[in-house]
């Protein structure tokens, strides 16, 4: 039973990507998100189809919360590698919980934007700015989480997860760095919808969720085959 639950948690990584993307597509956030240089009319138009936008964003909001089971599963594997003082495990659990909230909150604010689209246009623009900047810029918890996971994998003597997964985590942490530039630019590649901000972060986080979900799934299956608590997962 535990193996089944763990497998579900592993699958919730890729599921986060799929469900959130479907939600974004329904809401119209993807493929062409609003940017800081969108006109007032464009922003108001986006939120005017309130039922579709709200439905899509609700789905996306449910989707990003699927990250919580994955965070818990990562914690289970990390605690096995760390032994009696699982400090990195705690860092990962705390920051992982924060990242889920930091993804959910801006989506809720965006949904609120679609709640009363007939309001004063300036308020809608402000709500839109708040949602997007809150969505893009709080990168520190994500980066700390990635560094904690990467360090724990590279220090692991049992190689429960392949070492390259540790390096992927470091890389993903690095890919989040340009996101803070979203505060400083209204257009171009470093504005919030520029390729080095929204798109890069979207791809980086997607890689993180897919790789962690997939490699944990393999580790769980290897464990259950060998039926030993300290079995070596992969080479």
């Amino acid at each position: 039973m535990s193996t089944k639950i763990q497998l579900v948690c592993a699958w919730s990584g890729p599921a986060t990507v799929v469900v959130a993307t479907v939600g974004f597509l329904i809401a119209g956030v993807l493929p062409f998100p609003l940017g800081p240089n969108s006109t007032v009319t464009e922003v108001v138009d986006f939120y005017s189809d309130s039922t579709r936008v709200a439905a899509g964003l609700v789905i996306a909001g449910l989707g990003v919360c699927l990250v919580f089971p994955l965070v818990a599963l990562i914690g289970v594997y990390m605690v096995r590698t760390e032994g009696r003082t699982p400090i990195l495990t705690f860092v990962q659990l705390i920051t992982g919980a924060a990242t889920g909230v930091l993804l959910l909150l801006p989506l809720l604010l965006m949904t609120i934007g679609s709640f009363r689209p007939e309001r004063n246009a300036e308020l809608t623009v402000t709500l839109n700015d708040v949602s997007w900047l809150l969505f893009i810029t709080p990168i520190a918890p994500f980066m700390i989480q990635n560094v904690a996971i990467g360090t724990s994998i590279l220090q692991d003597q049992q190689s429960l997860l392949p070492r390259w997964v540790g390096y992927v985590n470091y890389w993903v942490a690095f890919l989040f760095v340009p996101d803070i530039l979203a505060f400083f630019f209204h257009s171009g590649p470093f504005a919030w919808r520029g390729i080095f901000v929204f798109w890069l972060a979207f791809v980086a986080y997607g890689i993180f969720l897919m790789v962690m979900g997939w490699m944990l799934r393999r580790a769980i299956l290897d464990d259950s085959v060998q039926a030993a608590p300290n079995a070596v997962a992969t080479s």
Partner: protein
Amino acid sequence: MKVDSHVPTDLPEFLGGEPAVARQQCRPRPPAADGHTPGEPGLWVFILGDMSLFGAFFVVLLWQRRATPRTFEESARELLRFIGVINTAVLLLSSYLVVSALWAHRQGCWRRARISVLAALLCAAVFATLKVIEYLHVLRGGQGPTTNQFCTFYFVLTGVHLLHVMIGAGLLTAWLQQLRGHGSQSRFVEGVAVYWHMVDLLWVVIFTLLYLVCAA
């Protein structure tokens, strides 16, 4: 283990047969041709991934330059080119020092390794100091990160690169710690060396693009 063919190795040491270990000490070894990956294979996921982001930066920089080549040229001429040249030399020197430190580390010459790593750290400090001086010069000249596209790329590229230099300095310091304990985790120190060479390589491209190509 290479031994001159005319010296029999089985002679006692006082008759000219040197102990096998001593022959190799503190001498550069040719690169291993045994398919050994420097550091470890997984490390290269990070190295190549990191470089591909910089590659994307470079492509977009050159793309944006096509729209306003004149602005790029004027802003690029505001940079202190001699600082860029000195910094390039400093980083190339630091790469050499890291190579010699790695050789020394592999041979177990701890003192020489420590001196080389310390010298590389000094290079990193010089690089960062000169970078800050240049930032102050550019900012005082009235150009900030948001002045124009060139300035944006200048500050972002050199800023992210400086972040890499600082992380690299941290890794070199960790290497020093290992040397203090005479630890010989070759996987770790090779990884640090690979990372440092990447930092150097990226700077060479950044220097070429920002200081030379854009100013031309």
